């Protein structure tokens, strides 16, 4: 019965995540209305047949803005995960290959240092220096992701280095670099994919938070976080402005989390019995 729950997680999660991914892709070619066009005559319309999610204080269609906002959120989160993977994984592999060396110590201590800065503080510093923008949000969340992947990679790689088949590869004369690439990396790929999904969903939350406080994507690029910020003063008479972007964030993150849980159980059947 429990494995049924996990398969359900995977299905619900991937459906939810796919809906928003497709919305983001479709928004490149088509949205019901133009999100940059102001239409004051139709401002603050409640949801209806013409405007499915209603309109905002400039008369822009909320549904269209959510579609384009999905693009911003997903793009920022994906690139930030990419930065974390591309820098964090090689660092972790290196630290594990030359474990207990000065290099290992240096990498791990730098990780600790980055961990002392919550993503928001990194974003605040970057914004203070370069001004706000989506790229700065990406960099801030990306930097935060680096130690996450570096630690995970090092930990998993360390336990693999003690395995017999790695010893065999070493006796065959393979160098640490090749072993890391050919034997360690493929074996921790599942772990990285699962963590990647989790960081992806955290990235969406972080992006929303940053744009909410004005440190993320700037107007006129629609973003879910800024839509919420703009809706705040109108929440008493136009609550739909706040409801739809919020649900978009909630459902995307929920979908990714369920998908990640489902994937983890798919990759590691042992966990199914333990039922976390």
């Amino acid at each position, binding site marked *: 019965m429990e494995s049924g729950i996990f398969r359900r997680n995977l299905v619900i999660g991937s459906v939810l995540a796919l809906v928003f991914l497709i919305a983001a892709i479709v928004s490149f070619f088509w949205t019901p209305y133009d999100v940059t066009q102001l239409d004051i005559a139709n401002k603050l319309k409640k949801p209806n047949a013409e405007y499915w999610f209603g309109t905002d204080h400039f008369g822009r269609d909320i549904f269209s803005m959510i579609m384009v906002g999905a693009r911003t959120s997903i793009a920022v989160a994906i690139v930030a995960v990419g930065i974390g993977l591309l820098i964090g994984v090689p660092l972790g592999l290196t630290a594990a290959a030359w474990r207990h060396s000065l290099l290992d110590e240096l990498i791990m*201590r730098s990780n600790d240092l980055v961990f002392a800065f919550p993503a928001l503080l990194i974003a605040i*510093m970057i914004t203070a220096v370069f001004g706000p923008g989506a790229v700065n949000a990406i960099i801030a969340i990306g930097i935060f992701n680096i130690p996450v992947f570096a630690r995970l990679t090092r930990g998993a790689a360390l336990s693999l280095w003690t395995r017999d088949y790695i010893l065999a590869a070493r006796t065959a004369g393979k160098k640490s670099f090749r072993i890391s690439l050919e034997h360690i990396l493929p074996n921790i790929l599942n772990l990285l994919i699962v963590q990647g999904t989790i960081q992806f969903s955290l990235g969406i939350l972080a992006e929303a938070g940053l744009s*909410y406080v004005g440190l993320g994507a700037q107007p006129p690029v629609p973003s879910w*976080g800024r839509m919420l910020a703009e809706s705040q003063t109108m*929440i008493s008479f136009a609550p739909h402005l706040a409801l739809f972007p919020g649900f978009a964030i909630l459902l995307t993150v*929920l979908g990714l989390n369920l998908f990640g849980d489902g994937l983890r159980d798919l990759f590691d059947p042992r966990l199914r019995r333990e039922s976390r």
Partner: protein
Amino acid sequence: MIRYVLKRLLSLIATLVVASVVIFVAIEVVPGDPASYMLGLNAAPDTVQALRDELGLNASKVTRYVNWVSGMLSGDFGTSYTYRTPVSEMITERIGISGPLAIYALLLSTLIAFPAGIIAATRRGSVADVSIMGATQLGVAIPNFWFAMLLVLFFSIQLRWFSAGGFPGWDQGLLAGLKALTLPAVALALPQASILARVMRSSLLDTLGEDFIRTARAKGLTTRQTLWRHALRNALIPVLTIIGLQFSFLLAGAIIIENVFFLPGLGRLIFQAISQRDLIVVESVVMLLVFAVVLVTFLVDVAYAVVDPRLRAR
């Protein structure tokens, strides 16, 4: 034990030193001169020079770094470029809101998470377990500032139980202050409580499967006695770590939540400072927050060593 604490203390200091250099260098590369910014475009060059002297901006970068750090150590955070008041005064005033908010949220999340996690673990597979786990899935996925807005919509606008924002000041009485911080604290606590409840549940499930629990049951203790005397104490170790780790998220979260409720805390201060390019304030608040995060991590490590002697050997 003392050796372990000293070692951790050294690494704490090293982290703080490097962090302060990173922050200083990052903020120093900002183009633009604070003195000319403060005086406006039409300021006479010698006035700007005089102000640069007064602010200590003419000294070398190394001297300025040393001045900044030694100033902070003695409680002098410099003078705000915009308000011309000591930064330490501004920070003290704001901490009076952000600090209690963070602690309030921490208490709430612990109060929610512990019973929820314990019920879910001890009644594994029951309706209660499934509902609690479902609720935590939602709690983890909900953006806390949006949840805060929903709280305002419901409790302030519909029911009119709480004010929608602002802070009356502690001089209006403890109760008035706590009331103003209640909705923000609930919003901050929810995601944290969800994560904590999940950790509590899985940690307790692990512990309940251990041999010493079976022994306790075998010697005749009831389920309840086993739970309170043996299982909980052991299950708490990972939970404590998570509480420590989450502190940094809590601080960052507080900065955002303060914006929803227009609370004049550190968060508002830092965003105002960014928009006014009051970099000395940004620099000092960021350093202070990093210090708080590193300090909590240190305290958790030490608490860990007190609870679990095996860790001291590392």
